[in-house]
């Protein structure tokens, strides 16, 4: 029986995860505590928080496992830089400075700053960590595992056979042939920030027509067995890590979209063209993922597929995999990106030390709890009106039904980029005005980005096609809204008729489940709009201090912290 801490970090989205005696005790992204979106720094705050939550001193850890092998990474960076001589002249000193000056010594730094003996700090390969994070928390004993991201050490895509506690690699593709880099390069081309704007591209795609297939055929060659080759000459990443694409891409697809300009999909021909490029990218991504999944099934014969890596956060592609890949089940855990590598690393360490595989992940609430008494004191000091409610679910549902927007905090915060009822902003899914107000005053999202619904799992099939399934509790897929409810769910319906639905059970998110039940009693509809409790460009709220800071600066109607209802004093 062992206590193992998994760590990911150094590039983007750092995280720590604690596994004790085979059970997942805590998993936290550094950004939640540092308040720095996608914080790449080694997650010492998150590690300390995991250990504090588990009541385990660092010295008592049996192992600390880092999610990547630094020397392999250095080799790939070195070789790929030299391979494009002299184009990488500007990039080389920067890359070497980062690798040699910092990342190569990560294991020593972890040992020193955590206070753990150096021989207890080990590494696993990046994609193995991803694969472990996908398989071991899944409900499946036997599954095919597919990991797809930008790049780990050298691997960008890998197939695994998963059986019990064994993960056997059955094939891999290496950098620069990477679906993640294709998506990232096009994300930058479309004027969005890489590692942040990919969701926006996915939302934008539904507004376009995939009419650039011929051009994309030059970027990516795909074979029926899922093997693909990226033409790296279109992507400046080899020589310029900041841009992500090269001049050749602009020659092929036209000039890039300047960043930070407002979108006008109705009036601007130029923006509609960019939407068409996004649609083509999304279609190509889905088709490659489908080919990879079919190959994984052919090679493993499994009827369940577990996915991880940044590309596995493409909820639209995941829906298509469930529909068309031939797998009966598809599972994507909530932090499928690099943060999830921490969980995979910890689970691999625990299994190696003889611990059992964890129970299937029932809830994403793996973070820190919120403190209602501290919230009470601070809210009072800030001059807000604080009421302790006897029926907080009923009161919340009542406010939402009256068209109000409620920030909602209950229990431990979520693992991964989705708010799943622990740190959410809730509104009426039937009311487009609520959605407009939410977007205008608080979220300030691009007009093409949809909001998501949360629905009682028991009623999900009545409103959504293919729900519930293994992904819907974690909002890692989309489902079409049934035609008869399309009009009623206008605030959460994307232009393609789908929604990134969360199905809610009492076990996974008890407080949100109670709100949905109370909302259904009042309105007959067991669905609310559920969006993340954060402002534009900020990480999701973690503590009561973050929640009240947000409430102070944003025109939310009410803030719920466990059983406290916090409102503004009447003027």
């Amino acid at each position, binding site marked *: 029986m062992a206590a193992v801490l998994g760590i990911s970090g150094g590039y983007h989205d750092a995280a720590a995860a604690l596994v004790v005696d085979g059970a997942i005790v805590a998993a936290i992204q550094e950004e939640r505590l540092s308040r*720095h979106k996608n914080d790449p720094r080694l997650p010492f705050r998150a590690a300390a928080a995991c250990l504090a939550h588990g009541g385990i001193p660092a010295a008592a850890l049996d192992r600390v496992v880092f999610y990547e092998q630094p020397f392999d990474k250095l080799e790939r960076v070195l070789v790929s830089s030299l391979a494009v001589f002299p184009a990488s*002249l500007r990039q*080389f000193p*920067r890359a070497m400075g980062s690798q040699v000056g910092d990342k190569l010594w990560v294991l020593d730094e972890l040992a020193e700053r955590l206070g753990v003996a150096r021989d207890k700090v080990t590494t696993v390969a990046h994609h193995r960590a991803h694969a472990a994070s996908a398989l071991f928390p899944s409900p499946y004993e036997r599954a095919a595992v597919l990991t797809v991201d930008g790049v780990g050490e050298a*691997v960008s895509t890998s197939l695994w056979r998963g059986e019990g506690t064994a993960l056997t690699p059955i*094939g891999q593709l290496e950098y620069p042939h990477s679906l993640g880099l294709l998506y990232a390069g096009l994300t930058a081309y479309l004027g969005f920030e890489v590692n942040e704007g990919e969701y926006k591209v996915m939302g934008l795609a539904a507004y376009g027509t995939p009419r650039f297939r011929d051009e994309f055929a030059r970027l990516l060659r795909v074979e029926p067995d899922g093997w693909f080759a990226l033409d790296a000459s279109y992507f400046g990443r080899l020589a310029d890590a900041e841009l992500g694409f090269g001049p050749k891409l602009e020659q092929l697809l036209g000039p890039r979209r300047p960043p*930070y300009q407002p979108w006008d999909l109705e009036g601007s021909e130029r923006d509609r063209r960019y939407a068409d490029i996004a649609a083509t990218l999304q279609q190509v991504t889905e088709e490659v993922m489908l080919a990879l999944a079919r190959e994984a099934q052919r090679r493993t014969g499994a009827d369940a597929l577990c996915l991880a890596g940044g590309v596995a956060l493409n909820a639209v592609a995941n829906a298509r995999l469930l529909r068309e890949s031939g797998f009966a089940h598809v599972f994507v855990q909530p932090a499928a990106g690099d943060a999830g590598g921490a969980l995979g690393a910890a689970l691999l360490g625990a299994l190696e030390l003889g611990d059992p595989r964890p129970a299937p992940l029932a809830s994403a609430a793996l973070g820190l709890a919120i403190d209602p008494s501290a919230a009470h004191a601070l809210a009072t*000091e800030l001059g807000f009106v604080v009421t302790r409610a006897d029926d907080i679910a009923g009161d919340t549902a009542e406010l939402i039904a009256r068209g109000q927007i409620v920030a909602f905090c209950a229990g431990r915060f979520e693992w991964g980029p989705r708010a799943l009822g622990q740190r959410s902003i809730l509104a009426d899914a039937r009311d487009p005005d609520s959605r407009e107000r939410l977007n205008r005053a608080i979220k300030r999202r691009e007009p093409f980005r949809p909001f998501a619904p949360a629905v009682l799992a028991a009623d999900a099939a009545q409103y959504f096609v293919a729900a519930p399934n293994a992904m819907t509790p974690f909002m890692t897929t989309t489902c079409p809204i049934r035609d008869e409810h399309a009009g009623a769910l206008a605030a959460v319906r994307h232009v393609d008729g789908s929604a990134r639905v969360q199905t809610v059970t009492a076990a996974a998110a008890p407080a949100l489940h109670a709100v949905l039940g109370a909302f259904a009693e009042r309105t007959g509809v067991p669905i609310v709009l559920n969006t993340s409790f954060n402002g534009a460009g900020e990480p999701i709220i973690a*503590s009561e*201090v973050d929640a009240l800071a947000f409430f102070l600066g944003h025109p939310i109607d009410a803030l719920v912290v466990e059983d406290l209802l916090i409102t503004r004093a009447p003027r």
Partner: protein
Amino acid sequence: MRPLLRLVTPLVWRVPGHGARKLFEFARAEQGSRLDLLLAARLTTSTTRRAAYLRHAADETRHAQMFARRSTELRTAAGSGSYGPPIADTEDLFERLGELRFLAFVHRGEARGRAQFELYAKHFAARGDERTAALFGAILVDEQRHESYTRALLVELAGSEAAARRELRRATAWAAWRQWRRAGRALAGLVFTVAMSGVYCLAAPPTTLVAYLTGRRAERGRRRRWLQAPPAER
């Protein structure tokens, strides 16, 4: 410092494109300050100070938005695009300095900011740029309040005026030391870049030639097939 600022202000703001960039830098500074204040609010043991830091952080958010908006307006008027949202790093000042010196550091920054913004407000008013003058004028009001509350909290926490002044001197010394270290890091970075560029120019051509000769064969072998993971990864 102030006479120098008064002297250079008219010159620096007249450099084409500089105004929008400088306003955006202010936006980032406000955003960074906001992050430090949020972390301070989380870590302080006093509910009263926590509330004060949160109010201050809310002001900094507003200031960052105001500066960024004006920067975008100027850029748009000049035919350029926005610099985007003001993203900043936190320096974890509260954790590094402790609450007393953190407060001294924040107070010092607010006092400097207030003095700077007073000058800028006058400068833009004299130039007839009422919008930018009004921006600095509006933020000045908050800066004065921040300067005043941080001073009061500093004296309260330090125990006396004399102890507060001592902390302010230490914060000034720490800031100078930080500047010195930053300059050292920048210089070291420059030396490293030059050295690495040299290594690159020496090592890359022969390596590229070898890679070209052997890599083409390897690439031919790699075509059209999945790779097997090395034994170490199994």
